[in-house]
């Protein structure tokens, strides 16, 4: 694995410096390892995201115009320590409260929670919404235990838009929760990424198998299935999302005429070519179901180094979510006119 890096132990710091540079002044680095918008309107409810590094262009790449106000960045695959959460919280806070919105991983929850405790010691009002879109990581009865995967791009986009106009922290929390409830993802992986500092792959998988439901660090999914074609795999994955909407009584199932957002995400090594071929089949599937795709997003947004794999995320839209989706946004990770 030839990687264009310097000191393997400094990649998280150096990539953050590079990310700040990519913003050409729209964002700045704060403290040890946070990135924050240069200008945050003083009357705004703030949106803070974050998580481990190594998944570029998320998480820190989702800071931007009508997106997150800041991100607390950890080391490779490691949640940011509480001090970093605190420094980011202080930097984005305008006095109107800060919503923490991040993927549901034990490490992130503990560190952000400690960060929230420290922040409230400082008098900052913090609420937390966990991203839990990975339907393969827990059954729907315990959907709050699910991991956050690529659906976070849509969820952060919607919350970012909502944070522009939300009157208070509770209102932003409500919309972020709605975006989470309405967004479900299923991923697969064919081969692992590696940790830059050790060069070791994060998991092993047979040459003939696909990990169905695998997480974005290679966490095991529901099963290993034989390697197959794009056209065979795509409906299998979408079935899992449709079934999940069907089984979950907290939300109506996906039915004819429903409008959705469709995100096809590459985990890194899977080419845009493959994503597009899978997208083609996904659209056939959705047309069959009579579901209307309001907007399609495709690309490598949530990656894990050179890990190969793909995920589909579907957001069931309602008028409110759609209105927030429609707002243009700009960032290194995702830009929409």
């Amino acid at each position, binding site marked *: 694995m030839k990687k264009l890096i310097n000191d393997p*132990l400094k990649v998280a710091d150096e990539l953050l410096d590079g990310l700040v540079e990519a913003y050409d002044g729209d964002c700045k680095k704060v403290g040890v390892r946070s990135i924050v918008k240069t200008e945050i309107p003083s009357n705004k409810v703030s949106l803070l995201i974050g998580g*481990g590094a190594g998944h570029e262009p998320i998480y820190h790449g989702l800071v931007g115009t009508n997106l997150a106000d800041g991100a607390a960045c*950890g*080391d*490779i*695959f*490691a*949640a*940011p*320590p*509480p*001090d*970093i959460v605190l420094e980011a919280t202080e930097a984005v806070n305008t006095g109107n409260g800060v919503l923490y919105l991040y993927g549901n*991983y*034990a*490490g992130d929850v*503990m*560190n952000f929670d*400690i960060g929230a405790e420290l922040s409230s010691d400082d008098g900052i009002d913090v609420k937390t919404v966990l991203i839990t879109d990975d339907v393969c*990581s*827990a059954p729907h009865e315990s959907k709050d235990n699910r991991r956050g995967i690529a659906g976070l791009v849509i969820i952060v986009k919607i919350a970012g838009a909502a944070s522009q106009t939300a009157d208070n922290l509770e209102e932003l929390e409500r919309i972020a929760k709605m975006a989470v409830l309405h967004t479900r993802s299923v991923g697969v992986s064919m081969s692992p990424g590696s*940790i830059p*500092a*050790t060069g*070791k*792959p*994060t*998991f092993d998988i047979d040459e003939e198998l696909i990990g169905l439901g695998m*997480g974005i*660090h*290679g*966490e*095991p*999914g529901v099963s290993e299935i034989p390697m197959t074609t794009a056209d065979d795999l795509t409906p299998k994955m979408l079935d899992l999302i449709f079934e999940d909407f069907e089984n979950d009584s907290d939300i109506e199932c996906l039915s004819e005429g429903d409008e959705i957002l469709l995100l096809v995400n590459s985990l890194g090594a899977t080419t845009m070519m493959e994503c597009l071929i899978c997208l083609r089949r996904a659209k056939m599937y959705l047309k069959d179901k009579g579901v209307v795709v309001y907007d399609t997003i495709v690309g490598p947004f949530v990656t894990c180094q050179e890990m190969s794999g793909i995920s589909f995320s579907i957001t069931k839209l309602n008028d409110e979510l759609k209105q927030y989706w429609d707002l243009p946004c700009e960032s290194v990770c995702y830009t929409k006119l």
Partner: protein
Amino acid sequence: MGKESLDAKEAVEMMKHVASVIIESEPILTDADRNLGDGDHGLGMERGMNAVINKLAESEAHEVSDVFKMTGMAMMSSMGGASGALFGTLFRNGGKALEGEEKFDSKGLHSFLESANDGVKSRGGAVPGDKTMIDALEPASIRAGEVSELPLCESIKIVALSANEGKNNSKEMVATMGRAKTLGEKSVGHPDAGACSVAIIIQAMSDFINT
């Protein structure tokens, strides 16, 4: 000769030794986390222990409790991840239980581990049997209570054995917490990475105290 207790300065030396042993053990811990998690536990602990070494070199510890609290702060601030919060909590909570004590002795070892164990349990919500660091920490804490009348150099040896046994027992457990939880039955057969760290830390303490 084995020590019966440590003062703050000796506790600093002990934690430096612990740090160097953990740093050496990075590959073992990395492998353990590769089997069940995302493979970064070794690096995280290495990062944390390097921060501990720096912190202990920079600032002076007046009490033994400070040594452990500084260790916890350094780990919590530098590591991130589940184990940053948890090992940070372990040493901070453990250290708090020693506030006001001049020496670290067998009774102190028990207070330290009991409080550390409570802290980690309430931070992470895991209980024994969940295949986490708790499965090394809790038996060590209980055993420390049972042997707190022995001199530290003796009690720590016994406690280290318990932690190690707990780590070994974690092999047969099914993970229900952290990244490993989705493995279910497949998690059986490998020890938990955090439990490995706990066992190595206590063994390193014992080795230092006994030389």
